[in-house]
């Protein structure tokens, strides 16, 4: 899939979550997402960036602008070298939390985007990729 543009943002502190939100918003606007779709992908990115910081101990967020035929998309990849997720199905279910959150982050983020994939290895880290198509 042709990648038009990409950018990598570190997530090391709380303020970085805000930077991720703003960058995702900017790109969603560039591919002319509707306001609702912009809000959805920004919210999903906010949830996942916070997970990255709290559970993954920080990491990197990679943004990519995609072009597939006539439609544009934004793909965001969240990668950490944290403890990994032992049971992905459980982590995706609503109401499950290993921390102090509400347990909506992972499953909720999945519902807000078009494509969602997660790879995780215990002791090695986690990589989550979301894509929102226009």
């Amino acid at each position, binding site marked *: 899939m042709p990648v038009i543009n990409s950018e990598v943002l570190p997530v090391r502190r*709380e303020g970085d979550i805000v930077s991720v939100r*703003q960058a995702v918003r900017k790109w969603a606007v560039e591919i002319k997402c509707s306001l*609702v779709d912009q*809000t959805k992908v920004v919210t999903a990115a906010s949830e996942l960036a*916070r997970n990255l910081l709290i559970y993954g101990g920080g990491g990197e967020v990679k943004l990519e602008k995609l072009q597939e035929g006539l439609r544009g998309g934004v793909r965001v990849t969240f990668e950490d070298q944290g403890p990994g997720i032992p049971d992905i199905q459980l982590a995706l279910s609503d109401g499950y939390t290993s921390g102090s*959150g509400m347990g*909506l982050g992972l*499953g*909720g983020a999945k*519902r807000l985007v078009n494509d969602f994939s997660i790879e995780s290895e215990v002791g090695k880290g986690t990589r989550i990729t979301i894509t929102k198509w226009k």
Partner: protein
Amino acid sequence: MQERIPILQMGMVLLVTIQVDMHDRLALQLQDDLTNKISESGAKGVLIDISSLEMVDSFIGRVLANISSMASVLDAKTVVVGMQPAVAITLVELGLSLNGVMTALNVMKGMKLLERE
């Protein structure tokens, strides 16, 4: 200097307008400040205007719900006003329904709601 969201007092009502993209600590600071201010002032109502907020994720949603519960324990009612439609759609799909939080479409309607309560 620590950044803070200002709290205005109008009679028995505390008014907060969130106009920045809040990071988590700022949201928690607001929760603390509001709780202290209710206790100090004896305010009976809290009006939180989120019409400038372009996004409410589960963290901010939880802070709004917490503020409402804490205010309630301190004998004050909270109304969240002005949520943008796109934010409302996203919140519900995310799985957050803000149960127990009173809402109104705008500040005026929120004020009316508080006066009735």
